[in-house]
């Protein structure tokens, strides 16, 4: 089975082939295939690869998984072949649209919206303040442009990744 795994800002193709007795052949990208012994239990995956022992803990997190190994944390998103293809088709467009949408990085309460529809904003300008866990966080425009939509109002509760403000980038496509 082939998966596309997004990790550390890159996409990695990973092939998994069961090799019997709890073992799997693993090929990452164009690397050499290695056979590892694996134990999967709930969020735990323990791999033995020669004398290397790696226990990785995985937990659901938003759309992806949150991985830990020893002292390190990471975000990984595993896509099956069909989803990876679908994403690849949509890829370019979605990325460009992302720049013009300011999202809340965490669930919280909107304290104040700092812009209105029609306002011109500069890159880095604060557009909304969202409070979570007793801290106020000013969220900023990534691109310069014009505010085309404000999706929230003061005192609204928002989820993580919720759209707050949409900005039509200035000189888009230039």
């Amino acid at each position, binding site marked *: 089975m082939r998966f596309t795994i997004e990790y550390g800002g890159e996409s990695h193709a990973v092939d998994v082939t069961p090799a019997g007795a709890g073992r799997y052949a693993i090929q990452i990208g164009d690397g050499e295939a290695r056979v590892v012994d694996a134990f999967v*239990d709930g969020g735990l*995956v323990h791999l033995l690869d020669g004398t290397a022992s790696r226990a990785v803990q995985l937990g659901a997190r938003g759309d992806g998984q949150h991985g830990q190994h020893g002292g390190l944390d990471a975000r990984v998103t595993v896509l099956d072949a069909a989803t990876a293809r679908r994403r690849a088709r949509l890829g370019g467009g979605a990325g460009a649209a992302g720049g013009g949408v300011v999202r809340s990085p965490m669930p919280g309460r909107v304290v104040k919206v700092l812009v209105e529809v029609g306002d011109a904003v500069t890159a880095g300008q604060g557009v909304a303040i969202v409070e979570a866990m007793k801290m106020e966080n000013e969220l900023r425009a990534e691109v310069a442009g014009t505010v085309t939509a404000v999706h929230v109002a003061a005192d609204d509760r928002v989820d993580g990744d919720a759209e707050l403000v949409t900005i039509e980038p200035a000189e888009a496509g230039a």
Partner: protein
Amino acid sequence: MFERVLIANRGEIAIRVMRTLRDRGISPVAIYSEADRHALHVRMADVAVCVGPEASAKSYLNMDAVLDAARRTGAQAIHPGYGFLSENATFARRVAEAGLTWIGPPPGAIEVMGDKLTARRTVEAAGVPVVPGLSEPVSDPDAALAFAREVGFPVMVKASAGGGGKGMRLVKRPEDFVGAVDAARREAAGAFGDDAVYVEKFIVEPHHVEIQVLCDDHGGAVWVGERECSAQRRHQKVVEECPSPFITEETRQAMGAVAVAAARACDYRGAGTVEFLVGGDQGFYFLEMNTRLQVEHPVTELVYGVDLVDEQLRIAAGQPMSVRQEALIPRGHAVECRLYAEDPDTYLPSPGRITGLEWPTGPGVRVDAGVDAHSTVPMSYDPMVAKLCTWGADRDQAIRRMHRALDETRVLGITTNRALHHRILKHPDFVAGRYDTGVLATPLPAARKPDGGWRDGLLAAAAIARHEEAVRGQRIREAQPGGPSGWRTAGRNRVLG
């Protein structure tokens, strides 16, 4: 001693208090907001009462609801923990009026220490050194500026009702003074509904060191060592240790005596903390007194072998405290790291569902957690999810053990500041034990980077887990209704290839 005690708090401190209650055979009563209905502190209690909706102001700060909960459950006393109603003199009075015991200092002491200027005047009269500063709120900015010039810049402008860094301004040059006073006033008015601000000399290279005190009804008053709390970010403590690697034994003894004098000056009872600023020259100045249990109290417990909550209970019950000054001998060193649900790089909060959790164990490790593997961290409360403490025979061992404890910690689903702690603990100034409150504003050592083997292991693990998921999903879809329960089979999947 009490038979039933209500804990007017949530999270780790509610659980911390509950544990000592259980040790004493006292039945704990938990309270909860709607958002905390199935929170860990509720699950660990046998008796729990809902006190209102998610917003603290309507639940944990709702005096009527809390008192009513105590009445309904037959609690004889209320432990406030820290934060929320713990330093609220009105609540302390209402507890007593309801015929219950307040496990905290007398309301009068809370009031004296609750106003910074009153506190300052009170302890100064008892011979406690204070930071040179105005003893009245600023009314005439020009007179205040003259004072600032007299003690010498830099100076601090501080909200009289303040705390946590709000309504605070550092002023380095005379020409910035008046503007800073105006700004601090506006901020103070917004934050505390009180725009009174005052001016203090700014201590250069200041250390934040605090002394734990205990006073009982039988004339007993002791100090239980100090805590070094200089590792602060935005005036919030992040890492604390006991003893302070900075102060000398002479300073320690002098500060202890002064802290007891400060407590006596306000007729204190129970556990309290006297905070000091200590300059690079070991000169120390009273900052404020926290009239409650402190977040970082476990480092004192580890080094002095005292259960501070147990002493609070004894004292509130009218018994003498169990410790004597001459028997309070420190042993070894303890460090506390506050584990926050926040990104270690951006400092953005990270509330949400925890989808995996394991705490470190083994020699020298103490964990006080407010969450477990079944918890959701709500967005409305403090981001601290746990306190990791380690004890070592010396400071070096305590720090090494903390690195190990951090490495063993697993919290999945939300982001914690775990990686930040490794970096702080490796900061050369921290390692050397010569850091002041500016240390976390200086560049930290780089975070550990995953090597290729780690990356490949993670990718392989994620792919194998998803592969097994797909195979198992197939099995579940193929299973007959009435076949083996998925509840049981979903738990474990030893891969047979």
